[in-house]
């Protein structure tokens, strides 16, 4: 019995690379002070350029006879508070979870009768950043919607599956080796707490899907297309994995 208990203790680290909730760290905590200060000061945070543009788009009618975001949702600081903290969320219309960008585009096509905005386009990033900004400082709260469960499991499988010529899984870096160095960079835990983020490497704002595609091609694997269900499943798993952590959008990263 005693022996069995001992074996069980030994076995736990081997089967679960998952980071204990109390040991999770935002990428912010691993950044240098200089980079943190860019994020902390709204006057210096270049992500705020997109937020300001997003505010204009929020109030803009897509064409003269149509409705703006504000016509239905009113003041975003009230109606959008906490929204980014619970996406991706299940959409009955799509029959699967959709991320914040897809939700905005669903609203555009069904409510505003406008063409969807292209993934990674400046306008879509701007509206997303404006919506996400309203949740800054709020904890990530993923709903336990049973309809999302199979997609969450699929996202977890994506995270744990080895891929590409380097034959690496997300979990090998971000669960097992966070805090260590990959080249000159510190490996973060990979929590999506600040999207859309301003990456100094990108010289611009980008979505979580862009970041995921970068990581996937980094292990020499063929990245999924923007909007692919596999990417949204992965986003869903990452947000669940970061549950309770505080949103920082628009965050700044190296």
């Amino acid at each position: 019995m005693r022996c069995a208990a001992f074996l069980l203790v030994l076995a736990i680290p081997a089967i679960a690379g998952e980071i204990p909730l109390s040991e999770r760290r935002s990428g912010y905590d691993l950044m240098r002070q200089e980079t943190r200060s860019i994020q902390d000061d709204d006057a210096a945070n270049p992500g705020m350029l997109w937020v300001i543009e997003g505010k204009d788009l929020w109030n803009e009618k897509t064409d003269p006879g149509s409705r703006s975001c504000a016509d239905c949702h009113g003041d975003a600081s009230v109606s959008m508070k906490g929204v980014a903290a619970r996406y991706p969320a299940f959409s009955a219309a799509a029959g699967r979870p959709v991320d914040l960008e897809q939700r905005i585009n669903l609203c555009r096509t069904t409510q505003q009768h406008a063409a969807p905005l292209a993934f990674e386009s400046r306008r879509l990033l701007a509206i997303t950043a404006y919506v996400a900004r309203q949740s800054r400082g709020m904890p990530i709260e993923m709903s336990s919607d049973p309809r999302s469960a199979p997609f969450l499991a699929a996202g977890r499988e994506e995270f744990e599956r080895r891929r590409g010529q380097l034959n690496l899984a997300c979990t090998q870096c971000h669960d097992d080796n966070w805090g260590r160095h990959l080249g000159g960079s510190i490996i973060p835990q990979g929590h999506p707490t600040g999207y859309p983020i301003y990456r100094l490497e990108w010289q611009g704002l980008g979505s979580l899907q862009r970041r995921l595609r970068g990581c996937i091609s980094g292990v020499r694997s063929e990245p999924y297309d923007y909007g692919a269900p596999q990417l949204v499943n992965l986003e869903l798993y990452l947000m669940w994995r970061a549950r309770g952590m505080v949103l920082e959008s628009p965050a700044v990263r190296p």
Partner: protein
Amino acid sequence: MASAMIHVPASAKRGEVIQIKTLISHVMETGYRRTSLGAVIPRNILRLFVCTYNGQEVFRAELYPAIAANPYFAFNTIATESGTIVFTWSGDNGFSATESVAIKVE
């Protein structure tokens, strides 16, 4: 799109040192990069940033290709009298953007 963010204290005491922060949206394309087909991406950078306080120049910066996108400037000046602080950015392809902010000095 030319959008700029400017932070100037709305009011200050005469003789006080105030901090001014500006951030402008600009790609700062270096002119050294190429497309995947090998064609040079033409240079498109800001060349000059000037700040005047009631018509008097208080800060000037020349910009070069190594400066990152969306340039941020923070600098100090002395609050002398109430008036207007004008910011002008100019650059390649005839780019020009001007913003002005009022300041009250007591």
